[in-house]
């Protein structure tokens, strides 16, 4: 979980100058992050893609990666109690701040955060901290370029840590294959995995929509970007569903000096492309695709200016 923001900082402060990182986030879910990332993947000339929405990864449904390498991911450790050694003193149960060991000295797996206090207080060494298989990490190849992604097992913790692993893999891929850009599909929200997805990147693109919910979430996620001093630009997706709210977002961005790089109309082509397992750019040459191309060129300009 939280444990990995600092690790992330460490690995990203010494990043090579020539390689850029762009993270697509949104605050609110379902605004179109992944569809837009997939469209960018089609447009990018020399990039690596990273799906950092490890909780509910969807980018692979469009990019259809061929997996080249699979690795186990161990998140936090987990306690393992040897009942044969246990003398039922209940010290572990009393010391666990997460209430992960019950009165009968059974481990409640979902509650264990792997701190190791139980193993430390156990007078007979009946508890060991063991590795926990929390998911899988993949290195893959797609029709647009290399991809780093992962799967977090059901009900596992440490998604922030897994995000950091995926980002490091993407970075190594970019170095190996001499790619100059990493495009990261980020998770919704503002917490641990989001922060792990955006720390140290060159630019975040926030995909929003003209709904009161999305506007509220945009403001919060912009706050996170400012907190970590990361430049942010905005895309208003589905801008035609409520033009009044679209104007509100435009005003807000203008007031706060945030560039709006794209305004995409509501268009079911996005869904149709998804059903055909294609990016919007591959699927159609219509207005939406043209708008996304324009937006992509603006983003490249901003990335260049940030040098």
């Amino acid at each position: 979980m939280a444990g990995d923001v600092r690790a992330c900082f460490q690995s990203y402060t010494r990043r090579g100058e020539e390689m850029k990182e762009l993270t697509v986030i949104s605050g609110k879910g379902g605004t179109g992050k992944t569809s837009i990332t997939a469209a960018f993947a089609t447009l990018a000339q020399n990039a690596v893609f990273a799906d950092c929405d490890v909780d509910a990864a969807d980018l692979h449904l469009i990019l259809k990666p061929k997996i080249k390498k699979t690795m186990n991911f161990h998140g936090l450790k987990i306690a393992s109690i040897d009942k044969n050694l246990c003398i039922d003193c209940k010290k572990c149960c009393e010391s666990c701040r997460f209430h992960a060991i019950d009165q009968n000295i059974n481990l409640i797996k979902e509650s264990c955060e792997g701190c190791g206090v139980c193993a430390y207080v156990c007078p007979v060494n009946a508890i060991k901290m063991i590795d926990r298989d929390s998911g899988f990490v993949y290195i893959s190849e797609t029709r647009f370029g290399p991809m780093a992604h992962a799967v977090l097992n059901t009900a596992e913790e440490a998604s922030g840590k897994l995000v950091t692993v995926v980002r490091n893999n993407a970075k190594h891929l970019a170095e190996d294959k001499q790619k100059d850009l990493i495009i990261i599909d980020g998770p919704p929200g503002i917490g641990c995995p989001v922060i792990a997805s955006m720390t140290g990147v060159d630019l975040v693109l926030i995909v929003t929509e003209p709904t009161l919910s999305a506007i509220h979430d945009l403001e919060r996620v912009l706050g996170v970007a400012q907190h970590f001093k990361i430049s942010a630009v905005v895309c208003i997706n589905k801008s035609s569903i409520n033009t009044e709210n679209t104007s509100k977002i435009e005003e807000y961005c203008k007031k706060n000096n945030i560039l709006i790089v794209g305004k995409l109309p509501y268009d079911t082509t996005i869904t149709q492309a998804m059903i055909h397992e294609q990016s919007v750019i591959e699927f159609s040459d219509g207005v939406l695709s043209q708008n996304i191309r324009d937006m992509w060129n603006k983003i490249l300009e901003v990335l260049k200016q940030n040098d």
Partner: protein
Amino acid sequence: MIISVASGKGGTGKTTVATNIALSIGKAQFLDCDVEEPNANIFLHAKIKEREDVSVSIPVIDKEKCDFCGKCSEFCAYNALAVVRQKVLVFPELCHSCGGCALVCPKDAITWKERIVGRVEHGKTKDIDFYHGLLNVGEVQAIPVLKALKRKIDRKMNVIIDVPPGTSCPVIESIKGSDYCILVTEPTPFGLHDLKLAVEVVRHMRIPFGIVINRDGIGDNRVEVYCRKEHIPVLLKIPEREKIALLYSKGIALADESHEWREMFGLVFNRIQEEVKK
């Protein structure tokens, strides 16, 4: 009865379903557990009357007692402590408050102080007892805020929980203890993929569940085929309509707009009540 509304994929309509059910049954307790991005009150309009801070304990090192032996940083599973020469650095946002550092300190040099990471707010709207949690911007740990929020549950009432997206720790913490879980999805490949993940979660937790299909008509029928095959009840389909999207964008709940919708969501609640009794 506690009903939680979850989804896997974000933006499928969890908040729409949760708020409308609450409005349809009238008297209820509502908890917005999406503490990273809480939106339910945009539709419920509860006047916030009470606020309480949520804090976590973080270690404070007594410089007089500490001899920089490094045992605390060695023990900490979260790298929240580092000993460099004659100094102990504490990284408060990484600390999980497990208490281990103080336990292992041979000099008894560690005490605790409170650190605010978010807040829980409470208000009333009509007959709904409304609570939401807010994680402070820049903070990483949603769990302490979630736990504080869930302590407000009144088991005597019908409780509706709006769950954050995803399948990891904050989702598990939100759903824990529910009598029933509604999974909201949309009929698209992304919706189906993430629905399957969410189904794994609720099955793993042994909570009975059913599906609401939102934006029905926008994609294909693979979600319905999946539900039939897996014997998962489809509780409701909300059609893809410009009118519905517009109401949502303005923060207007369907149940407040029309009597029919109020009845529909009421029926979903009745059906769940029967399922839970079984």
